[in-house]
């Protein structure tokens, strides 16, 4: 079981994290952030996140601040 901390106002909506997540736990948010981007959003209702940090590694904006396992 893992989780991530995502800084939604730093995210620019490139969605490379969505491509990287092996569990498909990231998706495009329906609400824009302060800069008008629709950021990525992390939802893990079934506790599927394995804390692999691939999302953080692929994020060009270091918007994924922390990853826990």
């Amino acid at each position, binding site marked *: 079981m893992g989780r991530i901390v995502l800084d939604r106002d730093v995210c620019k909506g490139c969605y490379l994290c969505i491509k990287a997540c092996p569990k498909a736990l990231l998706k495009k948010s329906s609400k824009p952030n302060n800069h008008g981007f629709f950021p990525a959003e992390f939802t893990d209702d079934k506790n599927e996140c394995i804390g692999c940090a691939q999302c953080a590694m692929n*994020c060009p904006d270091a918007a994924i601040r922390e990853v826990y396992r």
Partner: protein
Amino acid sequence: METLVYKRPESLLKAEKGGGFTFCPGCGHGVILRTIAELLDEFNIQKDTIAIASVGCSVFMERFLDLDVAGASHGRSTCVATGIKRCKPNNFVLTYQGDGDAATIGFNETIHTACRGEHITTIMINNTNFGMTGGQASATTMLGQVTTTTPYGRKAEETGYPLHAAEIVAQCEGTAYSARVAVSDTKNIRALKKTIKKAFEVQLKGLGYGFVEVLAGCPTNWHMTPTEAVEQIENVIKTVHPLGVFKDITEKESV
């Protein structure tokens, strides 16, 4: 109990205070700067590092990394770095340049720095165009690639062939390490960190010049989505600018 497995590096604090990177969405610079910041933290050399900000989007490094920074004019970063390193041999000296800078206007300086075997590290971001000025063709632009100055695709008979920087730098005797990596997927980003780490180590051990060329996406000027841009690196650019380690004198030692 949960454990922290990843944390945004301390050396990026300046970027965080400033509200994050100001690069275009999906730009490869962010991953590379974050990787550099992670390594500065891991080696604990942030306070001993002097970085050279070059011309192009790479100049923004100065805003995001909390380091002593000297500016350099177009293509002259490795000269400024030479002057600094010769006067401050105990500082870690890093140049952060683009392909328009290190491989086009400043390739002469790059080559001579390599031949002198200066104890500095160059990270060259290759996005196969002049990103900041709006996507004109650079020395590394691929044949057939459409840019604003090659609107019908780069033709060899008009503008020649792409320059392969990491391979040429590897030919210089003063080079300790030269490699090409890519910011395209998790596997390559892991390799990116390993490679930059090696290039840092050759400087820290005083072995010679370290050069890392990083293929990075420029979705804005390529007119692609960030996802298409990383696919372009994987499927097209890698076939022209192949990934690999072209020189590593530490390998030779261990054999």
